[in-house]
């Protein structure tokens, strides 16, 4: 960073403080709208960047080192919890992110890399501001951009920028005014004394205060009621982009549910299994009224090895009837996708890997040397659970009373939950007696009561509105999160323990081979559903979302004679759906066998466009750098081969070449004035000689016969001179 010799440190301090306040008006909304956390840390970094511009007591590289260190610290703190063993993980994430950036798969850029890029951008911005302040004495562009930014987000997002705008206006005027005063001092070579500052600053401050107060208290016209359609469209688009979970896919953070989704068919993993089935990732049970949170405090885990029985709360089917499922991950997820009835993870060669289950969420994480890792290929043995209808019919509400207090957490509801939600749940379930019937009554409630599935028309709840209440009574439009959360909340309100499950739906069939089917699971398959506790039976999964196939897990043993018929009926719609899915299967996938994708993975990055681009850039830069050599040479050779020369054209070309040399003729300059200037710079009097002839050619018709030969010598001398 360059030390500015002209500005006093005190005025620099004031300028930086003001600019910091202005920059802070960016950080607030960015943090609020994009869900970027750790604002205090980022703010500290900004202050550090400004401070290092002020402090010049040690060499500049110390400042750089300080900032690099702080960036590293922030990344390490946020993404590594300051655990030294996380360093290689973060390092690996950086490498994958660089690959993702180079292959333009922006979605695969990891959070740690995003944080890093954000901080580096901030650093650059602050350096730019520093340059504007101390070298250009002009901050207007930044001021204008801030106003534009705030006005835009005020128009297009929920962010209310009324007061930030007023603040920025005041700060900005003061900054611009103060810089102008500094500029006056510099331009007039005045010594900036405190008295002079006060003399100029006090009227400025007064003016800003008075005009701002005047502007604030004056009556203002109401905003236009309806936004014009194009602006409305922009509005929607921006909201979509800015939503913290704007794109579909598996995300860890569910604390604020709602908003619309865009479809995204980026593959997440491939599955080879016998049947189509849901894959569970984790569960959550703390409902806040806005979304789902994870229990705070210590996390208990239970670790297990390859081929060990996986400790999960979901029971599995008979051990003699197991299937195998293979999964090939594309994304860098540090968890496993579990089929229902998971028994064990089959060993592969990497014996160093172990696993643990987080007891609160039931998320399975692979580890290497006690560190979380990513497992790209694994196979699991599972046996899908089945439930007997006769047992389910026996489930009674009384048994729920006697449950262990461990189950209390699955009955938690926020105090702010509106009464009408409970009332509705009671209304739906009042005619049923068994727990199972009550649960299925709620499960099927949505399909017949005017609810609609949509990913695009979903709003966030208002500040004081409950997420479930909004869906059940106001909008009646939603996607899986709405349906599943509503069902969990309604079950809990009736005393039935329930939890919210996240994972992936079955995915698209790629091809079928004997017994195993290959499914491709994309971000579009990210899904959520419900698990409820059936007393005496255990946890059982339910699918309230309209349009999803759900689970085929209940064996009707109450009417043995109708068994086959019934199950056939039950299966019929699913089969149809599956057929449809197979028909809808996009053709490109068929043309692209699975080996292709793995090949693409191995090849990794396609280098040649980057290489070509780089070469073009280098060549272009080379041409640009040497233009003073080759352009005059080119002009000269062009004229050498010409038999007849237009003198005016020669004059034009000479002007261009001279302009490149820094000798540009002003419009109001006469030929002789220009010639004098050129000759002073280049020495000798060739331009004067050239102009003397050219003037005759241009202003004296009797001299029509001015010959190129007369001009040629001077002209060539000048061109050669410029070539150096």
């Amino acid at each position, binding site marked *: 960073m360059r030390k500015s010799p002209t500005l006093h440190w005190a005025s620099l301090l004031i300028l930086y403080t003001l600019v910091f306040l202005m920059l802070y008006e960016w950080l607030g909304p960015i943090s609020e709208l994009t869900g970027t956390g750790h604002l205090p840390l980022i703010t500290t970094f900004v202050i550090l960047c400004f401070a290092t511009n002020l402090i010049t007591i040690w060499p500049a590289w110390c400042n750089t080192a300080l900032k690099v260190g702080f960036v590293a610290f922030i990344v390490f703190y946020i993404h590594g919890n300051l655990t030294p063993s996380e360093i290689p993980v973060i390092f690996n994430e950086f490498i994958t992110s660089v690959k993702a950036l180079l292959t333009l798969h922006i979605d695969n850029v990891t959070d740690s890399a995003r944080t890093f890029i954000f901080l580096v951008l901030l650093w650059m911005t602050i350096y730019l501001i520093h340059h504007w302040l101390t070298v250009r004495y002009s901050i207007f562009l930044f001021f204008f951009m801030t106003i534009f930014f705030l006005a835009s987000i005020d128009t297009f997002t929920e962010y209310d920028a009324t007061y930030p705008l007023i603040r920025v206006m005041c700060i900005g005027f003061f900054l611009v005014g103060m810089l102008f005063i500094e500029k006056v001092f510099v331009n007039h070579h005045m010594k900036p004394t405190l008295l002079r500052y006060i003399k100029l600053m006090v009227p400025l401050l007064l003016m800003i205060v008075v005009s701002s107060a005047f502007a604030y208290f004056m009556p203002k016209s109401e905003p236009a009621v309806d936004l014009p359609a194009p602006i409305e469209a922009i509005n929607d688009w921006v909201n979509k982009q800015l939503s913290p979970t704007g794109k579909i896919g598996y995300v860890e953070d569910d604390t604020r549910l709602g908003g619309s989704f865009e479809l995204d068919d980026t593959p997440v993993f491939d599955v080879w299994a016998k049947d189509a089935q849901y894959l569970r990732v984790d569960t959550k049970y703390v409902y806040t009224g806005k979304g789902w949170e994870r229990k705070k405090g210590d996390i208990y885990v239970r670790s297990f090895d390859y081929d060990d029985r996986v400790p999960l709360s979901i029971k599995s089917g008979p051990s003699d009837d197991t299937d195998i499922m293979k999964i090939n991950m594309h994304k860098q997820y540090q968890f496993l996708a579990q089929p229902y009835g998971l028994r064990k993870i089959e060993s592969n060669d990497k014996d160093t890997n172990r696993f643990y289950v987080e007891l609160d969420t039931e998320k399975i994480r692979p580890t290497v040397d006690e560190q979380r890792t990513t497992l790209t290929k694994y196979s699991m043995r599972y046996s899908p659970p089945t439930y007997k209808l006769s047992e389910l019919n026996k489930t009674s509400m009384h048994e729920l009373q006697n449950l262990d207090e461990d189950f209390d957490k699955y009955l938690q509801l926020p105090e702010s939950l509106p009464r009408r939600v409970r009332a509705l749940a009671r209304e739906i379930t009042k005619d049923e007696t068994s727990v199972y019937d009550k649960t299925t009554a709620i499960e099927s409630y949505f399909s017949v009561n005017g609810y609609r599935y949509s990913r695009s028309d979903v709003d966030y709840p208002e500040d004081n509105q409950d997420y479930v209440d909004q869906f059940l009574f106001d909008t009646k439009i939603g996607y899986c999160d709405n349906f599943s959360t509503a069902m969990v909340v309604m079950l809990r309100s009736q005393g039935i323990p329930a939890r919210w499950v996240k994972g992936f739906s079955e995915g698209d069939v790629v091809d079928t081979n004997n017994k195993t089917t290959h499914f491709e699971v994309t971000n579009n398959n990210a899904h959520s559903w419900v698990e409820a506790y059936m007393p005496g039976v255990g946890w059982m999964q339910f699918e309230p979302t309209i349009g999803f196939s759900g689970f085929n897990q209940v064996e009707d043993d109450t009417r043995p004679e109708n068994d086959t018929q019934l199950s056939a009926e039950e299966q019929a719609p699913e089969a149809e759906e599956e057929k449809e899915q197979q028909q809808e299967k996009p053709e490109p996938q068929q043309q692209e066998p699975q080996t292709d994708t793995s090949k693409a993975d191995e090849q990794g990055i396609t280098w040649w466009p980057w290489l070509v681009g780089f070469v073009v850039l280098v060549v272009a830069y080379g041409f640009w750098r040497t233009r003073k050599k080759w352009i005059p040479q080119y002009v000269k050779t062009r004229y050498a081969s010409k038999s007849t020369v237009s003198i005016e054209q020669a004059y034009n070309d000479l002007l261009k070449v001279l302009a490149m040399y820094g000798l540009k003729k002003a*419009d*109001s*300059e006469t*030929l002789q004035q220009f010639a004098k200037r050129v000759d002073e710079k280049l020495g000798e009097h060739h331009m004067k000689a050239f102009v003397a002839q050219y003037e*005759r050619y241009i*202003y*004296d018709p*009797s001299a029509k016969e001015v010959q190129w030969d007369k001009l040629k010598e001077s002209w060539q001398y000048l061109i050669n001179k410029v070539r150096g």
Partner: protein
Amino acid sequence: MDTQVKLQAIIDNIEKVMIGKRHIAELSVVALLGQGHVLLEDVPGVGKTMMVRSLAKSVGATFKRIQFTPDLLPSDVLGVSIYNPKDMAFEFRPGPIMGNIVLADEINRTSPKTQAALLEGMEEAAVTVDGETIEIPKPFFVMATQNPIEYEGTYPLPEAQLDRFLLKLKMGYPDILDEIEVLRRAESTKPIETLTSVVSLEELIHLQQQVKEIHVDDLVKQYIVTLAQATREHPYVYLGASPRGSIALMKAAQAYTLLKGRTFVTPDDIQYLAPFVFSHRLILKPEARYDNVSAEDIVGRIVLNTAVPTRKSEAL
């Protein structure tokens, strides 16, 4: 004798008397060649009279001087018919205007009626007395002076009459070395007495004819008109240069070109002469005076901001 040599001789001659005022001498000769008149605006004692007298002596012309006073009558300028009892007829006694080179000193001191009489004479090169039109002998060149300091009891020239002057010049004080030289020469003899004419009146008339042959290219004419237009559009200007002003600039440029020994006018000549030709033709708005901007400044700025045509393709 070669044209340029003759003209340079005149200027050298004047410079013998007017030390360090070569450019004023040059411009006076330009006006003389262009058959225009000069308004000299300056304080007394800087050599206005000496200038004119030396010019007159150099070209062998008759020199007349009219000192304008408030009570001066038109007949005092033009001449008067007096009854001659001997011949029993009115006889015309020519006034001081009937000279080749006339110095009209402190022209703004006299009444508008007398000013008008002089200016009419300047424009027509003839005077009308008692219904009789009498031609003024050629060449005819008036150099009028006005004192910019005293406003009390003066009659400022109307704009229409200022337009009659080809150039307005300001003499200015000599710089210190030049003034020392002036003192040195004035010590012994009056230098003006030693001057002899270097060109005859016939030669001067011939030179005046030659001026008209100097070529002014269309591009240069375009430049002159663009400058004149710019004076009309300038925010500080109430009334800009008239087409007569444009013509004056062209004539002056032709004369100047002849003086410099060239055969065609270049934009450099125009740029040099524009302030002397245009500035007394502009009427400024009051704002200009508040902002302390003079007509010379405005013309200078216009010259700096007007594109010079340097290509045939730029012709309109």
